[in-house]
């Protein structure tokens, strides 16, 4: 293999590649998925109870609710608007506090408590909002409660869903750049017969395949870093991150090259990706659904790069923690390299026969 010829092919791909929609996919999809999953749907998995308040005075209840973590507070001016929103399930519950509410509570004149819940609100949200509201009203009253509550927190806090989604998003960024790009590029060249044309020049097929791999590798690393940064998951362990990203990109690029050399056209690559994409992404689901049996994730080959990535980016682990998994990943890479070589030879033979 001649490095100069590989660089020439790589330069050609870098110049002509951006004309292909797949380049735009590589650049846009990770950011789009981050936006969709984190901004739009992060809330779907763990919705907070939603309380609307119409405060006609300046009640301390409103201020107190604002300080409670986990309750989504909306302050409204109009009681009818509040009731409409509660009925339409735009809010779980609505509280109306009259002008002299606090003073009346303290004076013991029992002001009316207008507290509405939506018919579609969950029973659990109703009780959370109701007992919290009543407790806050009791605080306004100012009398000490006849009980001392000692809260004992047990175990680790766990990670929020926005963090648990990061492996999926980063893996997708790697997948698009490292698998889609080389495989589609190879299949496209084969379909348009430019691959056959290249092989009548001094460039060897193995050099073309290597150049495609390098392109995918470089873009995968870059897009993974951009995606991590976009998700606020750039680690304090830069060396470990670089090593893990190199190993992950290598493994996925090899899968991309296998797809590209095994398929006779773009539709073939698409079919392969659609058929096997689940296997590549499956381990990321185990970070989202932490109650699933975690050992199942280890059955998937990509687990051995996803978990080090997770440990390094989310748990700030160093190489000392993830070296064993990386060794297994390197073993997978060695196996896949043999497959890439075999498929490249097969492709060379097929091109020679056409």
């Amino acid at each position, binding site marked *: 293999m001649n490095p100069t010829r590989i660089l020439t092919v790589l330069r050609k791909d870098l110049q002509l590649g951006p004309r292909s929609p797949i380049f735009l996919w590589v650049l846009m999809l990770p950011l789009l998925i981050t936006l969709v999953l984190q901004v*739009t749907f992060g809330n779907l998995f763990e*919705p907070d109870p939603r309380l609307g308040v119409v405060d006609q005075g300046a009640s301390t209840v409103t201020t107190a609710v604002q300080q409670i973590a986990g309750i989504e507070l909306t302050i409204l001016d109009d009681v009818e608007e509040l009731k409409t929103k509660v009925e339409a399930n735009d809010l779980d519950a609505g509280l109306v506090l009259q002008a002299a509410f606090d003073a009346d509570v303290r004076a013991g004149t029992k002001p009316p*408590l207008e507290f509405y819940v939506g018919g579609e609100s969950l029973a659990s949200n109703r009780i959370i909002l109701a007992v919290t509201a009543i407790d806050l009203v009791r605080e306004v009253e100012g009398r000490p409660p*006849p009980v001392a509550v000692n809260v004992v927190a047990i*175990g680790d806090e766990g990670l929020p869903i926005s963090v648990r989604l990061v492996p999926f998003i980063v893996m997708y960024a790697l997948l698009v750049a490292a698998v889609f790009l080389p495989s589609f590029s190879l299949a496209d060249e084969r379909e348009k017969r430019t691959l056959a044309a290249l092989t009548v020049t001094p460039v060897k097929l193995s050099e073309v395949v290597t150049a495609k791999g390098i392109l995918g590798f470089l873009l995968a690393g870059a897009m993974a870093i951009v995606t991590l940064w976009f998700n606020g998951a750039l680690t304090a362990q830069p060396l470990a991150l670089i090593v893990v990203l190199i190993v992950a990109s290598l493994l996925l690029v090899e899968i991309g090259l296998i797809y590209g050399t095994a398929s006779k056209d773009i539709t073939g690559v698409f079919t392969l990706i659609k058929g096997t994409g689940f296997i590549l992404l499956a381990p990321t689901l185990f970070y989202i659904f932490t109650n699933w049996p975690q050992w199942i994730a280890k059955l998937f080959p990509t687990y051995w790069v996803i978990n080090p990535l997770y440990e390094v980016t989310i748990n700030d682990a160093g190489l000392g923690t993830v070296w064993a998994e990386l060794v297994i990943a390197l073993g997978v890479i060695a196996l896949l390299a043999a497959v890439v070589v075999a498929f490249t030879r097969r492709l060379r033979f097929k091109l020679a026969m056409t």
Partner: protein
Amino acid sequence: MTRPVSRSAIVWSIVRKDLAEYGRDKLWAFLTVMVLVVVVVLFWLLPDDVNESISVGVSGLNDPSALATLQAAEEGLLLVPFESAQDLEAVVAGDAAAWHGDGYTIAIANDAADEPPNGAERISTSIGIAFPEDFFATTAAGGSAAVTVYIDAAVPDEVETAMTSLVRELAYAAAGDELPVDTLAADQIFVVLGEDRVGNQASARDGFRPVFVFLILLMEMFVMASLIAKEIHDRTVVAVLVTPATIGDVLAAKGIVGVLSGMAQAVIVLIAIDSLAPQPALILMLMLLGAVMVSGTAMLAGSTGKDFMSTLFTGMLYMIPLMIPAFAALFPGTASAWVQAMPSYPLVQGLVNVSTYGDGWAETLPELGVLLAWCVGLFAIGWLVLKRKVQTL
């Protein structure tokens, strides 16, 4: 010597040709079947019920009637009695498993060899409230009791706050302290607005139903767009136009193929996920309009795509905004105005209203009207763009 051929016969011939091409395209045939199977399997894997209760372990309330009263008063709580605070702490910490039987709960340590009792069901709880045995007596006598709340650190903040508030409110009630406010209802502190759906909430399966059905239509959009792009790329459409067929015949045939294949797949999925039953005619009407809408979009995407990749990419550009209302339907409440402005919104909302809330023709008329307007608009635009494209070939 040629005998005159009717327009309908010409259109029908092109429809048959397109359907045959569709069947011959192995990739799209594979993807169509795969998406159908995946959608149906995923639907039946989704949970059909909604867990609305917070499971709370309780110890120290030795009087069963007190527990029963508390359970009845606090809808949304699932109270599980434990023998001791130690058991409760061990279960919340995950050091022991809780087995619940008829009126009892026992905790078996993870490292113990004990077998669970026959008929007992394993339960999990991440919150435990350990009352002192003299809780009611102390508070009723005006004293101050001490209660420990064991809580898994992963429990959301608002639940932790609510549990503390709950214990305090129980103590106030035991002490005979009335609420310092007048409530609107006599028996509970809140008034329910709208149909009370506690115990009958829309499940994940209900929520995803329109998403899945719409996904099928969108898949159809890709297939149609790809077939159109292929015809343009291979210029077979030009070959068809040297026959007695006009551009209008070709476009009409494309529209019919799109609607037929979209409807056929949608009906298969609707039957497979048992979603036709409530209002079959109304749901089919919504799907028909949806199929017309995606056919128009497919004409747009197909006329701009050059090959498989560019068609896929262009299709994605149309698909993403059309998917937004389907996903927005998963969230509670009214969708934002910009989501409601999407062409697919009336289709999705109509499906949600009919399949989840049992709406009929009268209630769905506004959605049908808006959807029809979008269908006419998108189909007309798709028709014109594709016609222009074919004319320039």
